[in-house]
């Protein structure tokens, strides 16, 4: 019961994040959806870590957090520089590589 409950919660949160990426246009909101998916994966990691009674799963979640921090820094820098050149944060208008 306990692992199943946590995994179901993690699935719901992951799906909300994934649907955000599919549906929303504001690139900052899309980025928050990606963060939410990483958090859902962390929750699953911790549930499994407790199921097996070791800390390797916690370490995996820790490294996910570190990589997420690095990813957020670079991603937001890209969004800021895109906003400076194109004056928009909508993912529809960022078609610089199309032509």
């Amino acid at each position, binding site marked *: *019961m*306990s*692992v*199943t*409950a*946590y995994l*179901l*919660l993690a*699935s*719901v*949160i*992951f*799906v*909300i994040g*994934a*649907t955000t990426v*599919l*549906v*929303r*246009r*504001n690139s*900052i*909101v899309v*980025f*928050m*959806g990606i*963060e*939410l998916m990483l*958090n859902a994966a*962390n*929750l699953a990691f*911790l549930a499994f*870590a*407790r*199921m*097996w*009674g*070791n*800390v390797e799963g*916690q*370490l995996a*979640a*820790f*490294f996910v*957090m*570190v990589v*997420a*921090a*690095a990813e*957020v*820094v*670079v991603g*937001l*820098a*890209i969004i*800021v520089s895109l*906003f*400076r050149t194109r004056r928009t944060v*909508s993912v*529809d208008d960022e078609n610089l590589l199309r032509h």
Partner: protein
Amino acid sequence: MNGLEMSTAEQVLFWIVGPITVLGASALLFSKRAVLTACSVMVTMVGLAFLYVGLGSPFLGVVQVVVYTGAIMMLFVFVLMLVGVDVSDSFVETIRGQRWIGAIFGLGLLVVLAGAVYRSTFTFVIGGEGAAGDNAGAVASLLFSDFAFTLEVTGCLLIVAAMGAVILTHRVRLTKPVTQPQLMAGRTKRGLRLTPPPAPGNYARHNAADVPAIDPSGRVIEASVPSSLRLRGQVHTLRGLSQDLLEDPPACGPKEVKP
């Protein structure tokens, strides 16, 4: 932890915090304002931190609050302010029906994931509660022995990411900086306003920033309201403001006294 069942305290924690996290996360789908979305996601992150502590890893719960709520979401809000909060999500679909297709894909993913979780059986929960008192110590001893190299690599990653952010947001100045006299001369040449714009609010009746000032002839000075409020269309009109200003517009010179 007694095998497959949750303890009562854990059940209470899960059924209170779990719905709150899902509610906070669902703002990502339904909220139109990006800042509100960021605040709701912060609630989700704090709720997840509670769940992490409940799962016997208080170290990661604290790290979650510090890194996600304290650093990452603050960075999101900072960038939202930098980009401008008036930039709202456009609801014009460039691909027809893309919103519904996305929602259907999300539902399908939920069904697949939940089905896989529901149909699989798990072993008895061994639990790390015994070591929960020294959870940080257990994590540290593993982190600095078996995963020491990984830790160093992630350190490199953080430094590279910080350098990359600095380089990405840095702009090389292509033109000479404009000095104050040059700016003034340009304004005079183009016939623009030389003085600072008048302060918002009129005649001490209203001092809110979204109320425009009134010039002596009774007309509204649009430039007195901050430009971000004008962009968002949050300027108060005189009609919406007060009736007496409309009936009795302030005029310059001595006013006639009504009997």
